[in-house]
């Protein structure tokens, strides 16, 4: 709080006493020391218990001292500040651990060989092998899904923003797009599976693409819709006033103005479906060999590769290493997509937008 500067001035009648700025740090250091002391005396050996104890002592001490010096309201404020900081730091632990483990264990086997070889002649327990077939499969399935979902999604958003207004169809579409966003990926997989059971088809890559497209469409619709709404009405009206037909106004004025945001939305949607495992597991099935044809025969994909290396490895470390390396590859792919998408969004942001 900004009261600290006034602390060493003469006490004023207008404001109560306040604690110096360094007091939270001092209390934190003190409570950690006390917690370690108690733990050593009582014989707690878990570091988690040490942490819990010091957090607890910190909160109690903060409240006690602040209530005495500054009053109860300020004490409550300090408790809230402490709790919020603690929550943030606690949440950081698993998230940092996830990133650290993936990177540190992933780089072990991640090299050019790993990226350019398949698992064709390598058993799960053996070292070697790679993810080439999985990358090919992922790129093809995700690419096909994008080709299907992006135009449909963008056109739907155009309908909602430019034509639909508050009509009944537009409201129904809006509602079901929202609901569709929450459809679990495995349900989309089961839907395509039910079609495949009816037509008695074997697993193949394009089936996975269809399920992924279902998952991708609502995301594209939502983001495109938001972007189209940001296009100033003056632009549309200026174009219409010049006698340009509405469809050309949309194609030549509205869409180019918001193309940056739309691209960002599509790329974020791609990043989302690239990590989907469940529908791929049901529909594409997995393959140790390179299969370049998404329309026939089982394929592999990166997330599915990770799952199979984990689940079929029977605890072999070589397989776990491959799973981590594939995870790192997948995360890198998703993160690069994210970063590029955000870069485009910043670069192409409409000047009058947010």
């Amino acid at each position, binding site marked *: 709080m900004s009261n600290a500067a006034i602390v060493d001035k003469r006490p004023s009648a207008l404001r109560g006493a306040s604690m110096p700025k360094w007091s939270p740090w001092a209390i934190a250091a003190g409570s950690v020391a006390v917690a370690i002391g108690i733990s050593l005396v009582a014989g707690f050996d*878990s570091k988690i218990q040490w942490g819990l104890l010091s957090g607890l002592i910190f909160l109690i001490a903060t409240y006690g001292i602040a209530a005495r010096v500054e009053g109860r309201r300020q004490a409550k404020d300090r408790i809230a500040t402490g709790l919020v900081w603690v929550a943030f730091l606690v949440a950081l632990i698993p998230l940092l651990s996830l990133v650290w483990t993936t990177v540190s264990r992933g780089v072990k086997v991640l090299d050019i060989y790993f990226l350019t070889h398949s698992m064709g002649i390598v058993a799960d327990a053996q070292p070697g092998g790679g993810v080439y077939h999985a990358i090919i499969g992922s790129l093809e399935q995700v690419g096909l899904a994008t080709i299907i979902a992006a135009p449909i999604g963008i056109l739907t958003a155009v*309908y909602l923003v430019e034509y639909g207004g508050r009509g009944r169809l537009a409201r129904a579409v809006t509602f*079901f797009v929202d609901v569709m966003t929450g*459809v679990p990926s495995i349900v989309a997989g089961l*839907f395509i599976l039910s079609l495949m059971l009816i037509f008695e088809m074997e697993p193949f890559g394009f089936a996975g693409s269809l399920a992924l497209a279902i998952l991708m469409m609502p995301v594209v619709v939502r983001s495109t819709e938001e972007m189209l709404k940001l296009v100033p009405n003056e632009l549309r009206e200026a174009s*219409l006033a010049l006698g340009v037909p509405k469809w050309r106004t949309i194609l030549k004025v509205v869409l180019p103005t918001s193309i940056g945001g739309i691209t960002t939305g599509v790329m974020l949607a791609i990043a989302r479906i690239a*990590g989907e495992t469940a529908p791929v597991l049901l529909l594409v099935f997995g393959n140790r060999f390179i299969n370049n044809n998404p329309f026939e025969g089982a394929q592999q994909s990166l997330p599915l590769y*990770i799952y199979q290396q984990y689940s079929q490895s029977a605890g072999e470390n070589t397989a776990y290493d491959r799973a981590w390396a594939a995870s790192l590859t997948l995360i890198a792919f*998703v993160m690069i997509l994210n970063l590029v998408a955000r870069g485009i969004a910043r670069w192409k942001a409409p000047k009058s937008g947010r």
Partner: protein
Amino acid sequence: MDITTHNTTDAPPPTPQPTEAERKPAARGATRAGDRIFLGLSRGSGILLLVIMAAIAVFLTYRATLAISKDHGNFLTTLEWNTGVQPPSFGIAVLAYGTVISSIIAMVLAVPIAVAIALFLTHYAPRRLRGPIAYVIDLLAAVPSIVYGLWGALVLVPHLNGLFGWLNDYLGWTGIFSWEETAPRSMLTVGILLAIMILPVITNVSREVFRQVPQMHEEAALALGATRWEVIRMAVLPFGRSGVISASMLGLGRALGETMAVATVLSPDFLIHASLLNTGGGTFAQNIASKFGEANEFGRDALIASGLVLFVITLLVNGAARMIIARRAEYSGANA
């Protein structure tokens, strides 16, 4: 933003029209054709989305009835999943219990922490750190679930022995936290992992909501002498309540349908365990992923039947979340 005001080409005002129509009849005809095609395409896409949703419901129901009609157990209460034997007998009781319990654990753990982080990002963190931290949380929301699953199985599970032992020592008498020293691959583990996974989602949405709190409300509270916590309690939380609820329900929807993370972490069995710590149980999505490989066609239909139940549950949860959002739509940033 009002979209309806500029529909001028579709329904032109009558008075100035005749002269223009006489001058350029061909151009007007082309305009109308182009407009009609484009409108048809975009409206068709919207309708296609509705058709897909309907088709999901119809085809899942069709395959599900095929399976349920041959079920010799009770689909809702049978505590086993035997689809490969004659007569087949399977039920969703265990799956429903596991799905609900693991999601509840995830919500209890994740929602308070997510709200706290959202408050941290909007009100507590040093100003320079806010952008980068929010950015990192955005990226964490994009980490694929299978990676969370791998991390959960290989890193989180070994670290939970201590926690489980502690819970058993001090809270084991409740029955909920008693532990038979089995591997910590239980419902609580799943709940913790799901909490970690949905944390970024709930945080992101809550942060957006808290950022939209009118500056005036906060400044008014500050001017009355409120402390920062009082500002949050009196101005920020009441304004953001419905947003936080809908964010939580979006997170809940994700937790309910999560497949791979649960499948990698849980050691499933088909029993309802009173204790959250003992290995076993299952969820809808996890059961589908684990049983799919060995299932014959009838087994797959049975799995589709359980998937239909999951579909309906997530539909209800997400629909409810959207209703809550829609009710406060006039406050949302999209219309600001």
